């Protein structure tokens, strides 16, 4: 601690350089934390899903719809306690640049099957009752400053035209993986406007016991095997995991980019540290003359690298944690529960320590081994 004023004074010698170096480290660790959080959020999404819910989609792929008539036939399968359906809408808001997740749902059955979406009773009733009503996640409401009763117009991208809904309810998820950046409206209304009654994007089934999941899924798929719209049924968790698998390469890419960014910044930091140490050759020689030993000088240079790395880490990792928490970022509803995990902070801190060691080691060893007389003669 006695050497801290000396270390801080050295760092203050070229304030702009020090600030830029710390900013580089902070930015690198911010990006690292962000990309890593994308990966952990996708992984968490893959693990989300009630064991009491099955998802049934078209066997060929989720983009192919299923007939709405399947609802009654699903309901008739032993062990199925409830059925609901939904459709991806995909609209834009405002100037057409604001995008968030939008679903057309069957209001009553959907809210019954998803008790994790908490809606006040009066709002729930109003949403179910009104054909053009919308149910909006709490954070989405806050993001746009919407109020209950307000009309919201979306520009359809898959289903063209202006779609105006009246916000009648706000939901708060009890599970962060549900996300609260989603707008939902009546499936009936969408079908009516599109003049294509009887189409659903996917079905969600509530079953009596997780132990029956495989049997029920098999029975359903066999039932529609030879129809024009065969089904693929599985647990909700498997359904979410299949999305995560689609993200798989993206996760790898993000992890790789994160490490590449950190490595690039490591080179920048190491260069700045070496430049700083080289400029101070005379001073290191003077300190040695005064009596500073190799170990003390090694420690001082490493401490300088440590101050840069730790300050950068606090700003970068802390900034990422606070920013995403404060803004409730969810990637437009695609990354619900986006939050920098403690494990990411730990890994980020380890990366920062690695950064300190890698960038400080060479100049520190150089300072420790500097021959005094030669150094004094060179600069004299």
């Amino acid at each position: 601690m006695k050497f801290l004023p000396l270390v801080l004074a050295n760092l203050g010698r070229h304030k702009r350089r020090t600030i830029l170096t710390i900013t580089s480290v902070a930015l690198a660790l911010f990006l690292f934390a962000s990309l890593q959080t994308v990966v952990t959020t996708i992984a968490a999404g893959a693990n989300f899903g009630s064991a009491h819910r099955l998802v049934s989609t078209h066997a060929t792929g989720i983009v192919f719809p299923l007939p709405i008539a399947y609802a009654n036939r699903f309901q008739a399968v032993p062990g199925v306690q409830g059925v609901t359906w939904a459709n991806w809408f995909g609209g834009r808001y405002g100037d057409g640049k604001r995008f968030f997740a939008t679903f057309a749902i069957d209001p009553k059955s959907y809210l019954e099957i998803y008790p994790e979406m908490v809606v006040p009773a009066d709002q729930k009733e109003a949403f179910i009752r009104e054909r053009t009503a919308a149910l909006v996640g709490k954070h989405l409401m806050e993001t746009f400053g919407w109020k209950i009763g307000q009309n919201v117009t979306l520009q359809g991208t898959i289903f063209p035209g202006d779609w105006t809904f009246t916000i009648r309810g706000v939901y708060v998820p009890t599970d962060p993986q549900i996300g609260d950046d989603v707008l939902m409206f009546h499936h009936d209304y969408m079908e009516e406007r599109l003049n294509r009654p009887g189409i659903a994007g996917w079905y969600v089934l509530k079953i009596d016991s997780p132990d029956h999941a495989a049997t029920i899924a098999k029975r359903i798929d066999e039932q529609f095997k030879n129809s024009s719209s065969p089904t693929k049924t599985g647990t909700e968790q498997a359904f979410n995991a299949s999305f995560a698998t689609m993200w798989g390469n993206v996760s790898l890419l993000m992890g790789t980019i994160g490490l590449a960014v950190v490595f690039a910044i490591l080179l920048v930091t190491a260069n700045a540290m070496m430049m700083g140490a080289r400029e101070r050759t005379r001073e290191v020689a003077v300190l040695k003359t005064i009596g500073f030993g190799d170990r003390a000088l090694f420690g001082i240079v490493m401490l300088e690298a440590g101050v840069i790395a730790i300050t950068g880490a606090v700003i970068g990792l802390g900034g990422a944690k606070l920013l995403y928490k404060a803004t409730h970022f969810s990637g437009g509803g695609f990354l619900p529960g986006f939050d920098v995990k403690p494990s990411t902070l730990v890994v980020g801190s380890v990366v920062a320590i690695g950064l300190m060691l890698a960038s400080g080691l060479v100049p520190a060893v150089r300072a420790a081994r500097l021959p005094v007389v030669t150094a004094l003669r060179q600069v004299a």
Partner: protein
Amino acid sequence: MSLVEIRDVHKSFQRDTQRIDVFSGITLDVEEGSFLALMGPSGSGKSTLLNLIAGLDKPTSGTVRVASAEVSAMKPGQLAPWRARHIGFVFQQFNLLPVLTAYQNVELPLLLTRLSKREREERVTLALGVVGLEDRVSHYPRQLSGGQEQRVSIARAIVADPTLILLDEPTGQLDGKSSQEVLTLLRRLNDEFRKTIVIVTHDAHAAERATSVLHLEKGNLIRATGVPSLRASGEPAATIAGAR
């Protein structure tokens, strides 16, 4: 009693393929409490001799003893703490750390001790008081004149109360007035505080303030003034003249 004992020291450098002999068997004693000036033309080995005494450089052969410790035999790990305890060094170019205040510069050697912050503060204040700069504690080197910088440098050299103060051309960068101030200060350190001082200088006025003067030429001690015992390169001891 000799504080510094240099015995049959040889020192040579290798420059490319050429071997340069700086000293070929120099022997010298510096008495405790003396004020010795080393004079001579450039390249005569004055600074090398100072570096050998300070343990910054090692002789090719021979021994250098300071306060009974054989400096020439010490390992690098032993030299640093020994220097911190026994040597105060003053450079021609002051070599203050520009990012530190006068106070912080003077405090540097004390950071290597176990003194408390309060004790360090007392010593730094005392040292700056001795050099007459107690009112410049929070000034940075760039805010000081050359003479003031050198006085801070001297305060840094004396703050840990070293056994020996070594100065390499301390007035080389100073104007006449500042030089006189620094030399008066050195004289006072020798007279009042009984500090043993070895100064390398080209300046005849600086040498006049010393109690003894040694002249070096091509690594040989060719003439001495006021040196009680001197044997250089096999020559007879130099005559003692002009002793203070």
